[in-house]
């Protein structure tokens, strides 16, 4: 029961962050919240007893890809 409630809270937060990614005014904010989103997904993976996927998602999704996004945003907003 406790697990269900906490998972529900996690999912609600996940959805909220996802909506923010889509509607956020600034692209940088969207990218940062995408990082948060990835961390939340990682948490869900841990709950689902998939530590291998969670590790990969944390490294690639939350770390590497966020870095890519920031670099790309930097390169497309000079001047």
């Amino acid at each position, binding site marked *: 029961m406790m*697990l*269900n409630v906490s*998972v*529900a809270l996690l*999912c609600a937060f*996940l*959805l909220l962050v*996802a*909506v923010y*990614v*889509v509607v956020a005014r600034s*692209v940088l904010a*969207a*990218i940062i919240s*995408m990082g948060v*989103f*990835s961390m939340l*997904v990682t948490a*869900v*993976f841990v709950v*689902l*007893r*998939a*530590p*291998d*996927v969670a590790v*990969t*998602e944390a490294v*690639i*999704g939350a770390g*590497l*890809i966020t870095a*890519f*996004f920031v*670099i*790309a*945003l930097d*390169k*497309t*907003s000079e001047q």
Partner: protein
Amino acid sequence: MEAILATTAFALTAIGLYGLLTCRHMIRLVLCFNILEAAVLLAIVLLAYRPEALAPLVRDGEHAYVFPLPHALAVTAIVIGASLTALMLAFIVRIYKSRGTVYIDELKEWRR
């Protein structure tokens, strides 16, 4: 719990598709793709989940393990998604360099 997570996966897909159809900024388009992909991953990992099973890390004694095949699929999909994202971002940077825009609806070189 499975129901909650499945609903979340579908809802995330809906959010991602909405974003895909409404966002003008190309980087945000890529973000939407990442949301879509996370949703699928969630679904795939959910496929393997059994409430009574343990994570597929072998330990002593007889245990029920979560079936590891979907996890392998998910890991592969994450890697593929990352390379897709990287390639898309590379295209965006190139387009910005040569065309000076980051908005998808200004890409109309092929009108005729």
